[in-house]
Structures are given as structure tokens and as C-alpha cells.
């Protein structure tokens, strides 16, 4: 190398700031997004409330009191009582255990399956696409209710403990929900894979795994986040419909969904708002919080956000 090559490697002091780890940056960006942090706090709070709160309640799951039925909020029952004279506050907290888990886990499952399969289909196209998309078509076309009835009957025949069925429930809601996400993701990937940076990855000889999971999928994160946020609310509400089929929770175990459905008539709606407002608010707050986190996550992952 000639003397002039030296300038290429600067020997002048470049500000030697320790480069941040990507995680640190993401966390920093995330925490700078005030709303996202609020969202995270809310979710943590909800979890704490639901998992620790009941220990501070003077009541327990099986308690009921016919004399106290349908009471409005009072100092004895902060959020009132239901038609069995049960404390709504306690039930709301206990319900959260189920609903939060169902919402998050089920959505997690559909997102993971859906995003992965959608990405594979969009990336490989040809027969992979055909196969995955046709399977997705089939999943979309299958009637949900009869399948759930069968599963309920099978779980009952196998004498699976009703308290364990909630795990099957998460799995089922999760598995039934992947197909639409996969189609959305695939659609995006089809567009993305034609972009020049994908030709660049080809030129570098990157492994398909990296092309898919590192290059393509992150670009679909925004749409996945929306699906996921919507999915959480859907799963929480869907759960309540499944109790009747022997897959969901069994009374008296509450879930937000079944607490609300219990008030599914004009009279409770009008006269006893304390029956449905607390669980409804919980779902709302959870969904909003998850959305805030999602937005925060998207902004944190979006290189062009300045916030």
C-alpha cells in the first residue's frame, strides 16, 4: 500500500463512544415513547391486580350470598355484587387471570404460526405458497363451532380437568386464528421480496432463514402488531363463548367475557351497570394498553421514527 492509503484508516481521534447494543437502543427508544411505557405499566398493573389482588380480598371464589344479590357498589362490595351475591371486584380480578392469559397466549400462538407460515409462503412462492395458502383457505373455511363442540366432547370424554382445559382453549383459539394473519403477512412479503434489498441479500448468499426472519418479517411488524392487538380483544371475548362447549372455564370461575355475557340483556344493561362495566373496562384497558405497547414497539422498530 502506498503512503496515500493511510488516510483511509483515520488515525485521528474518532469520538470513541461505546456503541450501544441494539437492545439498549430499542429499550431507550421504547422508554422514550411515553405512551408505550404507560401501556406497559397498565399491563403490569393488570397482571399484579389479577394475580395478587385476590389474596387481599375478604371473599373467595366459591363464596356467594343470596341475601346480598345484585347490590350496587358499596363499602362492603366495592364494585357491587352479581345475582349470586358474589363480589364483583374479586370476580373481576380472578377473571383477569384467565382473560389476560387467554388473550395474550392465544394471540401469541396465532401470530407466531401465522407470521411464520405467511412469510414462508410469500418468500418461497410456488408450491410452498400454494400449499400453505390452501391450508390457510381450509382453515378459514372450516366451521369453527362444530370443531369446538367436538373438542369439548373429547376433552370431557378424556376427563381432562376443567381447570386445565383453559390451556387447550388458548391453543385452539391460537390455532384457529393464524390463517388471516398469514395471508396478511404473505401479502406484504410478496411485495417486499421484489425490492432491491432482497436482491442484495441474494447476492450476499444469505441463508433463507435470515432473509425471511431478519429481512422480511421485521418489515411486516406494523401489520402484525395491529393484528395482534385486535386478536387479543377478540380472543378475550371469544373465550366466553367457548365455556358453553366445555372448553372454556366452568362456573363459578369467571372470565371477563363470561362476566359480560352474563349481563346480556336489557335489564342488567340498564339497571345494573356494575355487572358489566368493570369487566368491560378491564378488556378496554387491556386492549388499549396492548395497543399502546404495540404502537411503541412499532415506533421503536421503525427506524424512521424520530420520537
Amino acid at each position, binding site marked *: 500500500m502506498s503512503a496515500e492509503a493511510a488516510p483511509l484508516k483515520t488515525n485521528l481521534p474518532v469520538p470513541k463512544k461505546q456503541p450501544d447494543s441494539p437492545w439498549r437502543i430499542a429499550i431507550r427508544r421504547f422508554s422514550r415513547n411515553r405512551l408505550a411505557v404507560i401501556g406497559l405499566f397498565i399491563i403490569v398493573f393488570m397482571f399484579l391486580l389479577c394475580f395478587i389482588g385476590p389474596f387481599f380480598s375478604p371473599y373467595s371464589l366459591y363464596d356467594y350470598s343470596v341475601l346480598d344479590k345484585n347490590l350496587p357498589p358499596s363499602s362492603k362490595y366495592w364494585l357491587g355484587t352479581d345475582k349470586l351475591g358474589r363480589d364483583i371486584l374479586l370476580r373481576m380480578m380472578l377473571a383477569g387471570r384467565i382473560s389476560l392469559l387467554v388473550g395474550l397466549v392465544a394471540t401469541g400462538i396465532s401470530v407466531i404460526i401465522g407470521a411464520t407460515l405467511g412469510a414462508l409462503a410469500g418468500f418461497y412462492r410456488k408450491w410452498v405458497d400454494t400449499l400453505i395458502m390452501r391450508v390457510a383457505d381450509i382453515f378459514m373455511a372450516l366451521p369453527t363451532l362444530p370443531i369446538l363442540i367436538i373438542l369439548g366432547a373429547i376433552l370431557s370424554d378424556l376427563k381432562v380437568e376443567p381447570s386445565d382445559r383453559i390451556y387447550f382453549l388458548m391453543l385452539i383459539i391460537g390455532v384457529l386464528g393464524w390463517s388471516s394473519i398469514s395471508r396478511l403477512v404473505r401479502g406484504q412479503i410478496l411485495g417486499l421480496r421484489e425490492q432491491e434489498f432482497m*436482491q442484495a441479500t441474494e447476492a450476499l448468499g444469505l441463508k433463507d432463514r435470515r432473509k425471511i426472519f431478519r429481512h422480511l418479517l421485521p418489515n411486516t411488524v406494523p401489520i402484525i402488531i395491529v393484528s395482534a392487538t385486535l386478536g387479543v380483544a377478540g380472543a378475550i371475548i371469544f373465550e366466553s363463548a367457548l365455556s358453553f362447549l366445555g372448553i372454556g372455564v366452568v362456573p363459578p370461575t369467571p372470565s371477563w367475557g363470561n362476566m359480560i355475557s352474563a349481563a346480556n340483556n336489557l335489564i342488567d344493561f340498564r339497571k345494573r351497570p356494575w355487572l358489566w362495566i368493570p369487566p368491560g373496562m378491564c378488556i378496554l384497558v387491556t386492549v388499549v394498553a396492548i395497543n399502546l405497547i404495540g404502537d411503541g414497539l412499532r415506533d421503536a422498530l421503525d427506524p424512521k421514527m424520530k420520537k
Partner: protein
Amino acid sequence: MSQALIEIDGLKKYFPITGGVFQRTVGNVRAVDGVSFTINKGESFGLVGESGCGKSTIGRTILRLLEKTEGKVIFNGTDIHTLSKEKMRALRPKMQIVFQDPFSSLNPRIKVGEAIGEALIDHGLVNRKELKDRVIETLEICGLAAYHYDRYPHEFSGGQRQRIGIARALILNPDFIVADEPVSALDVSIQAQIINLLSDLQREKQLTYLFISHDLSVVEHLCNRIGVMYLGSMVEMASKEELFRNPLHPYTKALLSAVPVPDPTLKRDRIVLKGDIPSPANPPSGCKFHTRCPLASDLCKQQVPEYRDVGNNHFVACHYA
């Protein structure tokens, strides 16, 4: 003459033109229409020509980023268009490309440090611990700095992005690089650095380049041999000295005369090309250049000029050369 690294034989690449509701194929863009040449080991071959004449397409087809329509691309003795997907992938580090458009060839969501280093990991060329050092080293070689490691592509200026593209190709230690206008977006100072860098690397590592550019001064500086393309075909090919001293094809002459010179006081005569610019979908009969050629005759309209060696390894396709 040294050994050929790349042999291109009768390469054609057509793009279908689609139209109508059902997107039927209504014709072909003959982006590359039967081009043959070889590049020797350690040589840098310059490809110049009009914008849209198929330079990038050649570059991409050679690397099999596009599937060829016809012809052969032989790299180190293997016809790469016949390789399996996995074999092709394994061969990739040996042949790299610097893209013409640095921005769209970078994934907006991937930090440049990772973008540059990821191929090393995937080809198992380096372990994760050394990775960062290697990347930073390469960044610095290319005139970027360590603090750029954690930035996203959009946070760079156009020239900086181009250097990221170069770094990404160089880090794999390839034998052959298609450099698709690697310095056109750079300011002269960086351009000088990059060109110096490329020629240093070539000398040290026996690198071979296909250097696509329209900046003749840069091509002149860097390349041993130069090919001039027009509308999908090679119209002239010669060693650098020969070509600049004795350009034979009227298009080459026009090109040379159009190069701007950094001297505001100097006003030169340019050969101005007139006439219809033909389309690669429907190239003119005979010599493709005849529509704009100052020397064009009836012969040129009817007969395709032979691409021939006029001696001194100087090839040209013109009836009047």
C-alpha cells in the same frame, strides 16, 4: 494473457412486457441481446454505455440475480446458471455486487453494522465475537466510522450509503465484484478514496472487477479493458489505452466528447447525438445506432455490422470503423 475468471457467451436477457387486464405478455424488452466477453483474473473490466442500455442487467445476470434468457456465464470454469440453489449460495461470497442504488438495496429496518456483517455469519466465515471488529474495520476501510455501526440506512447521506454497499461486498473477500456505478453518488474526495481503495484491493488480492459506470474518467483510471454498450449489445471493446486513444465507434466518440471537464474556462466541441432514441423493445434494424449516428448510411439501416477484431484486441461493431 492470464486466465479467464468470467466468460460470458452470447448472453441474452429479455424482460417480458405485459399489458391488458390479464397482464398478457405483449413483447420483450431486450435488455441484453447477445453479449460475449471475458474478464481475466485480476483484471478490471469497465462497462460503459447509455443509461438503460443493459449494463446493470448484465451485471445482475452474471451473478444470477436474474435468470438468463439465453447464453452462458462461466465463473471459474463452472456455468453458474446450472448450479443448484445451495451450490450457488455457497459460491456467492466469491462474487459480489455493489448496487447502483444504495438506498433501495439496503433494508430500511436493519442497522448497517448488521447489514454488513450478516453474510459473514451466514457463511460461517467469522465467529460472532470477531464480527463486530471485522465490520468496523471494513467500515473504516471504506471511509466510514465505528459510530456508524448502529445507524439505520436512512440516517446516511447518499454517498455514505454507497460506501455501506461497498463495505458489504468487500467484507466477504470476494474474487469478483460487479461494481454497478459504485462511485457515481460520491463526492470527488470520497470517490478518490474508493477508487484508490478498489485499486489497492485489486492489487493486493488479485480482485477482478466488472466496473459499470458512465463516468469515463473514473473508468479510465481504474480499468484495464473497457466495453462500450449500446441498446443491449456491445459496440466496442478494447484496452483502455487503445479505446481512449483510438475510439472507433461513433457512439464511443460521442461519449468521450461529452465528458465534462472541471475547467469552467474551457469550452469544447461536443459531438451531439441527434435523432430518435430507439427502444430496446423494438430495436431498429441493421445497426442499432443508425438512428442517431452522424455517419449513418443506408447500409447501416439494413445490415447488422459485424462485431470484429480490428487488431490489437480492439473489437468494434461498425461498418465504417
